[in-house]
């Protein structure tokens, strides 16, 4: 799947889940609940090499989920 589509979806999610203490939880829940494993892994890979394109929460989400997936 075209990575630009995934990044746009991710940005939409970032913008729409308001920033507060549960944001991290909600974003990661969302990705796990609705994205296919392939979408997630393609996206994680992209984020790792394009960190600045996303906010700190998304970076954190990706790191944690990657760690979990690799575990």
């Amino acid at each position, binding site marked *: *799947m075209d990575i630009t*589509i995934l990044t746009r*979806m991710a940005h939409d999610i970032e913008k*729409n889940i*308001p920033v507060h203490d549960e944001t991290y939880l909600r974003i990661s829940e969302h990705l796990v609940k609705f*994205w*296919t494993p392939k*979408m997630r892994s393609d996206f994680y890979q992209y984020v790792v090499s394009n960190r600045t394109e996303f906010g700190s929460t998304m970076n954190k989400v990706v790191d944690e989920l990657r760690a979990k997936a690799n575990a």
Partner: protein
Amino acid sequence: MTILSDPRGTMPMRSGIGEPDYGTPKSNSEVMVSVTIDGETHLVPEGTSVMRAAGESGCAIPKLCATDSLQPFGSCRMCLVEIDGRKGTPASCTTPVEDGMVVRTQTTKVAKLRKSVMELYISDHPLDCLTCSANGDCELQDMAGVAGLREVRYGMDGKNHLDAPTDSSNPYFSFDESKCIVCNRCVRACDEVQGTLALTIEGRGFNSKVSPGGLNFLSSECVSCGACVQACPTATLQEKSVIDLGMPTRTVQTTCAYCGVGCSFNAELRGDELVRMVPTKTGGANEGHSCVKGRFAWGYASHSDRITKPMLREKITDEWREVSWDEAIQFTATKFIAIQEKYGDNSIGGISSSRCTNEEIFLVQKMVRAAFGNNNIDTCARVCHSPTGYGLSTTYGTSAGTQDFKSVAHSDVIVVIGANPTDAHPVFASRMKRRIREGANLIVIDPRKIDLVESAHISADYHLQLQPGTNVAVINSIAHVIATEGLIDEEFVAQRCDPGPFKRWRSFIELPENSPEVVEAQSGVPAEIIRQAARMYASGKNAAIYYGLGVTEHSQGSTMVMGMANLAMATGNIGRDGVGINPLRGQNNVQGACDMGSFPHELSGYRHVSDNAVREQFEMLWDVKLMSDPGMRIPNMFDNAISGEFRGLFVHGEDIAQSDPNTMHVEKSLKSMDLVVVQDLFLNETSKFAHVFLPGTSFLEKDGTFTNAERRINRVRPVMAAKNGKQEWQIICEISQAMGYDMHYENAAQIMDEIADITPTFKGVSFAMLDEVGSVQWPCNDAAPEGTPIMHVDGFVRGQGQFMETPFVPTEERSNRKFPLLLTTGRILSQYNVGAQTRRTANVTWHPEDVLEIHESDAALRGIVDGQKIAVSSRIGETILTATVSNRVPAGVVHTTFHYPLSGANVITTEFSDWATNCPEFKVTAVEIRPADSSTAPLNDLEAVLTKA
């Protein structure tokens, strides 16, 4: 034919094969009174008419102007009775019973009066019973018999209406004035049942006659709902199909397959030929009402375009080749397996259809999960109500509307957001309009001045005419007013909602950025109007929100659903009659498709595929290993098809090439696949890209259930034999089997048994149960054996109600210099969705093409006049439509329908979608418009589009 009759065997309770008619509506009083009728004493609810009491107790009283769908009128004077202690002979329809009343329905006096009345009627009525189309289903004929009329002493030479003309202008029914007995039932049905008030009585005395106003029925305000035809006791208003085919002789009760209202109908047949569809009074959703689609537009089922034999082709450029079922199924299975062998398990998937039965849908998702071995199943709800599921399950815990339709009769404030019920959900709209006429307040939030804003005896208190794409800003500002003006129902919130999220929401919503004054600039809605509407919603006793795709089909569709859910919680408008959050579902079985586990992430009953316990139950029952990760959504499938990962698709009864956004993109992805299997009634835009065409069954051939927008599970019964020779569920089973997965059922009832077995909210449902009670609203299980008309009564399904913050994030699709107008889309009454059915009926009389509504100032600026062909272009594509200059849309906004493939409305819609569910942003597309000239290429032409791409 069954006739309920009194002990004397003279008085039919029904005419023809229709339902029994008690003459006046049922009284809902709990106080019982005692009445003695013809010597027998009965207890009936207070407020019951003498007529109804008599009918219910088996002493039916003759009547003509009375019918139990209408308020008593008292005009025919056939129902006169004698009551002890009362002067004269009161009409039993207009006389309510009183405790201790003694009524005599069969005295010499009333018998003579009835005969005299009947003699008068017949003195102005054609004596052609034997050749009349209503012969056998004519109340006048019945009553003449009951009254014992043998001779018309007035003769037939007096003044009469026997030469009055017949109005055949309506394609579905005719109005033969010469047979009219001026009982006013049609006029009253139009007023009371439909609420259009199109009919009236013209003239007075002997010259009184029914008039649609204007030239004829077709050119009148009449919406062809059929209520007048149904109400007519004679052949005056008669279906043309009855005139042509003759009186039906048997009925099969079933459910309409158009919109999400889910009306119950009696399909009336003559032998095996369907003669007419008559709405049933016992239908829970419609209670005897109908619209032009369900009532009349069923002829597509027998249209010559129907494909009834399976067809194959190797390449989409080849001609179709008719094949046997075996060959088609074998071809399909072999090819799917081959793709999976080459490209992996995830390389194929399926799309289920909201037009099909729960049983068919359940099997399609079962086939994908069990036979395909992945979770790549999605449904067309993706492009309509997926945000409803997300929003309501997040806040309340259930992906469904909270009320039954009847609830609206208890509403004091009705808010309609992004929905156009009079066009898209007409039968529910009639209920809503009735309540508004009774005095309920109405707030409409819509960019367009829809009919509800101003129609017969109805006028919205507030119309918040917002810019497309600013729903969330407006709903937030309403909540802001409620929060900052002390209008929150603190007690309800404290008792029912999670306090943490509520606190967080409150501080968010009170921010100045959510104030009406700030939102005015974003939405174009005056701050004062927002404030007043907010106060009205919060301070009405019962306030209900009804919404449609104008809420969901946005980049913030899910946010908006949560915004509305917040509002209802904050004001305590949840959990009883007259309140709630109510999605008006577009298709007959959107609710069911979602319930049945058609989404890639959840199994039936909204249980996530990652839930091990749930998955294990399914694995045990289905004897197969299931995947625990979500599969692809429809847009993912398209994207992955283009990138080559996704190669095979089973499309069950959905024309994705016409109904999904950005046609060019959809078509490109379909062309990229190795196998596209379409199961449908007709060849369509999608089948142009298909390799296998599996003929489907129309709703008239199906056996199963539909679940409507109020969670009501209705039976769909086969009215005629399947034209393709197979039920669709059988076809699914056969493909699964051919792919190596053993799927087998004896009948559709067994599928429902399986659904009930594995889905807690359906536990109590079975065909046998539905056949007995008519219909039931889920949850239906041990905790609610009779179903659940209203949800969240004592507590939310998820426990505590969850407030969600709903920041307004404007869509990136904005008007700009190049595309200065915003296009939004909608439906029209006579057509349905992509028009596959309605375009194949006489409904085209009313809407022969899609048009673009444009404000007069925008039209003038561009030199566009009414009826002119215009080119509509977005950054995605261009199409040609006919302009209708109309002030229903504000300046800066244009609107079109998408019922005709030629219009290609989705050629221009964009790739943007809801952030949470990827429901497409159909309702906002920046466009420019110019008069079409010879140089304008019709880009909605497929080849032209693809060449350009």
